[in-house]
């Protein structure tokens, strides 16, 4: 694997490989000494053009647990705010000897540009680009679902037969997109639930079912209910009348939580808007996997960095994925 840019083109075998390596990484995180010497001497650059706390920290922890050196680069307070182009920034990182670049960018496709432009030889990991994809989030979600349902027998298994319902702002959500592709590749049946204004136009081409009513979706007894964050920063038009109305119709409150089937789980990629898309009852219930998702995120990102960086480097362009 040279880059991790999206889950749409990720094969089932590659996805399972990442998830299985993540299992091994998770095992090492229960040891007395959590640090592995595996990526000693490698440099990972976190190149963040958009604000992020948890994803950046998660990648930083993952790289450090594998003994890589980490350089954090955020657009604010950098030369980017002085007008430096992505190309010049990338070439600067190349000159510093970056082995992997973890990039978050507001423009969909920026990671692919970085990976295919020939500006750098480093491996590129997409940590969220515009409204396109956020592959490591989907991988950690799949990992979390697999762990909850199959426990110690998780290795090598896909998600065939499981039903996952994703609720909320699908339109702006790269998490939803990455999950749709990955979960269906792994054999799960995905349903999207959203107000009609927050359903993307091209959704008819996606391998999913669309519902507009959360109560009907809950009556279908999903195995996992994934609540998306209402992204206030992207709510530049009137997608729904008021937050109260959204919360009443599409929020996971105590009553809806009570109607979920006995072993189903509640997921949220964070950060949560408590009281808007998810109630405190749901967020803090034993069904909630929110904190497991954070823990698993480090293991999954360790696996991605390991698979990108540990082996012999294939020549640039040899494997354009």
């Amino acid at each position, binding site marked *: 694997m040279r880059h991790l840019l999206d889950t749409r083109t990720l094969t089932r075998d590659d996805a399972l490989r990442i998830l299985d390596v993540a299992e091994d990484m998770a095992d090492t995180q229960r040891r007395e000494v959590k640090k*592995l010497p595996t990526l000693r001497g490698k440099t990972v650059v976190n190149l963040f053009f958009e604000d992020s706390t948890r994803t950046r920290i998660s990648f930083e922890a993952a790289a450090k647990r594998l003994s890589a050196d980490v350089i954090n680069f955020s657009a604010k307070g950098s030369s980017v705010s002085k007008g430096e182009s992505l190309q010049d920034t990338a070439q600067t990182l190349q000159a510093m000897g970056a082995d992997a670049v973890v990039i978050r960018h507001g423009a969909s496709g920026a990671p692919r540009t970085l990976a295919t432009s020939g500006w750098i030889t480093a491996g590129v990991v997409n940590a969220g680009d515009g409204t396109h994809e956020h592959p490591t989030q989907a991988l950690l979600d799949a990992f979390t679902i697999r762990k909850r349902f199959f426990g110690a027998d998780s290795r090598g298994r896909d998600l065939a037969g499981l039903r996952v319902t994703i609720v909320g702002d699908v339109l702006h959500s790269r998490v939803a997109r990455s999950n749709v592709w990955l979960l269906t590749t792994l054999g799960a049946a995905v349903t999207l639930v959203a107000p009609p204004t927050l359903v993307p136009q091209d959704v008819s081409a996606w391998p999913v079912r669309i519902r507009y009513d959360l109560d009907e979706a809950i009556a279908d007894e999903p195995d996992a209910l994934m609540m998306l964050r209402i992204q206030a920063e992207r709510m530049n038009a009137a997608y729904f009348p008021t937050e109260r109305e959204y919360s009443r119709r599409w929020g996971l409150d105590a009553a809806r939580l009570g109607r979920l089937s006995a072993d189903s789980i509640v997921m949220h990629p964070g950060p949560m808007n408590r009281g808007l898309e998810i109630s405190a009852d749901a967020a803090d219930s034993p069904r909630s996997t929110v904190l497991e998702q954070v823990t698993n995120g480090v293991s999954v990102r360790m696996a991605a960095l*390991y698979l990108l960086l*540990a*082996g012999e480097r294939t020549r640039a362009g040899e494997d354009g994925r």
Partner: protein
Amino acid sequence: MSTRTVLHEADIARALTRISHEILESNRGPEGLVILGIPTRGVNLAQRIGALVTEFGGRSIPVGALDVTMYRDDLHRNPTRAPQPTEIPAGGIDGKTVVLVDDVLFSGRSIRAALDALQDIGRPAAVRLAILVDRGHRELPIRPDFVGKNLPSAREERVNVRLADVDGIEEVTIES
């Protein structure tokens, strides 16, 4: 290219039986023993040795697996290897006598990696090394404590260990 079988099924069984007796003898009994196999075939051998030591020593010996992939010094020279599961028995390894088990001892670099991996898991009282086939050509100052067979070989020859539970056949062959 010629292939020669150097150990047959009965030879492997005898070697493992002898190694198990030697482990008990050098440890003066089964006290504090933990047996850890190095994936993949070392794990199968560790289970067999563990069963034999349990039988001869009269008390159950914990057996586990120790993956060394992430501690190897040749990761960047080879295509990415998939790590294998590490399973440390419930009692841990602190203060125990850990017997590492592998199928073939060659450069000694896997064992170096295994020693580093052990150090991250705990602090054993002692670490011993049991090997089914020692083929020489060490690159590090590492030597086995228990050896099934010393097999002088040329560097370019290949030594293959096949076990019934993994490969369906039980033999050690040398290809040149």
